C-alpha cells in the first residue's frame, strides 16, 4: 500500500511539476501581442466608428460634445490618462447605454445623459468605461465575443457591412467578464476620487437603474450588460471609504440642463444639430 501511495505521489508530483513549469511561459501575452497588434485595434475601431457615424442617429452637436468632453477631461487630467486619444460619440437612442469600443472610442447613448440626474452620475459611467479602455479589456472582449478569425476577416476588408454591424451589436450588448467589471468599477472609483468627484453619485445611478429596470427592461441596456448591480452599489460604496478627498463641482446645473435640452430638442427635430 505504501508503495502505491509513493508511486501516486511521484506521478502526481511529476504531472503538477510539468504543468506549473509550462504555465510559467507567457502564452497569453505572446499570443495576444502577436495576433492583435495596436494597428489592428486601430483599424477595427475606425471601421466600427465609420459605421456608427454614418447612422442617422449620430448626434453632431458641438455644444453637447464640449459639455461631455469637459467631463472626460476632468477625469483624464486628474488621472494622467491620455484624454485626447479618447473619442466620444453620442448616439440618439431610447436605451440607457454606454460602451467602450476598440481604439479608445467611447459611445454614449443620449438616454443615458437624459436619465443622469447629475453630471457626476454620467461621470461615473464614463469613468467605468475609460477604466475598461485603460486596462486593455476592450480587445480582450472583442476576441472573446467575435473570435480572432472573424476579426481578421473584418480587418482584412473581406466582410460585408452586415458582419461589422453584427460585431458592433455584440460589443454593445454583451457584458465583460465579471472579474473585468469588478476591476473597472474599482478603477472608476479611483478615477472619480482623483478627479474630486464623489463616487456616491455613480452608486446612486447604479442603484436607481437596478431598482427601476424591471419596469422597462429593454431600455436599461447598461444595467443588463452589467449584472448584479446591487452588489456593485455596495462594492462602490465600500471602495469609496478607502479614500479621502474634497468634492468639487463638476458642471453647473445650468450647463447640465442645457446638455439635456439639446438632446430633448434633437428628439423632435432630427436636423437641428446637423453641422
Amino acid at each position, binding site marked *: 500500500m505504501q508503495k502505491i501511495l509513493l*508511486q501516486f505521489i511521484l506521478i502526481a508530483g511529476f*504531472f503538477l511539476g510539468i504543468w506549473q513549469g509550462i504555465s510559467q511561459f507567457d502564452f497569453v501575452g505572446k499570443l495576444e501581442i502577436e495576433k492583435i497588434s495596436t494597428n489592428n485595434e486601430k483599424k477595427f475601431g475606425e471601421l466600427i466608428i465609420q459605421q456608427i457615424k454614418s447612422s442617422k442617429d449620430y448626434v453632431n452637436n458641438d455644444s453637447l460634445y464640449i459639455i461631455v468632453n469637459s467631463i472626460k477631461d476632468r477625469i483624464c487630467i486628474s488621472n494622467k490618462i491620455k484624454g485626447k486619444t479618447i473619442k466620444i460619440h453620442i448616439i440618439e437612442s431610447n436605451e440607457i447605454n454606454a460602451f467602450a469600443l476598440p481604439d479608445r472610442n467611447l459611445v454614449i447613448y443620449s438616454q443615458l445623459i437624459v436619465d443622469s440626474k447629475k453630471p457626476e452620475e454620467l461621470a461615473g459611467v464614463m469613468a467605468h468605461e475609460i477604466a475598461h479602455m485603460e486596462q486593455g479589456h476592450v480587445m480582450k472582449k472583442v476576441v472573446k465575443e467575435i473570435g480572432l478569425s472573424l476579426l481578421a476577416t473584418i480587418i482584412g476588408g473581406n466582410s460585408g457591412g452586415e458582419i461589422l454591424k453584427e460585431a458592433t451589436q455584440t460589443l454593445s450588448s454583451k457584458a465583460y467578464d465579471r*472579474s473585468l467589471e469588478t476591476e473597472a468599477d474599482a478603477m472608476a472609483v479611483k478615477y472619480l476620487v482623483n478627479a474630486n468627484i464623489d463616487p456616491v453619485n455613480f452608486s446612486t445611478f447604479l442603484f436607481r437603474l437596478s431598482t427601476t429596470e424591471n419596469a422597462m427592461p429593454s431600455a436599461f441596456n447598461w444595467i443588463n450588460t452589467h449584472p448584479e448591480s446591487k452588489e456593485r452599489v455596495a462594492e462602490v460604496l465600500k471602495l469609496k471609504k478607502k479614500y479621502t478627498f474634497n468634492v468639487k463641482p463638476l458642471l453647473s446645473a445650468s450647463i447640465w440642463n442645457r446638455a439635456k435640452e439639446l438632446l430633448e430638442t434633437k428628439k423632435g427635430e432630427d436636423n437641428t444639430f446637423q453641422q
Partner: protein
Amino acid sequence: MNGNINFPYKPHESEAESASNSYLMSLVTVIAGLPLPIINLLGTVIFYFGNRKGTYFERWHCTQALLNQIALFITNTIGFSWSLSILFSDNQLSNQYIGYMVVIVGVNIIEFITNIYTAIQTRKGIHVEWIFFGSLTNLICKE
C-alpha cells in the same frame, strides 16, 4: 513500466490475445472518443465487464487498462470542462489553462504509445506492469 515481470503462470495464446485486446480497445476508443473523454472510458468499461470472468491474466490486464482509462478520463474531463468554461462562461484564457492543455496532450500521447507497447507485449504473453497502475491492479485483482 516494467516488462518481463514473472506472472504466476504462462498465459495461453487466447488469454494473451484477449489481454492485448483490452489495450487495443482503449486505443480505438481514444480515437473515436476525441474530444469527448467519456467515450474511451465507456469503451474500456464495456470491455472490462465482458472479461471480468475471464482468466487471471485477462482480468489483470483489463483492470490495468481500465484504471489507466479512469485516470485519463479525470484529467481529460478537467481539460474539457475548462475549455467549455472559457468558451461559454466568465473564465478567461490563461497561461495555467494552456499549460494544462499542453500537459494533457503530452499525457495522452504517452498513454497512447504505452498502450501500443503493452498491447504488443501482452500479445506475446509477456506480462507488463505500469508504474502505480500495475501496483493498484495487483491490489484489486486477485488470483
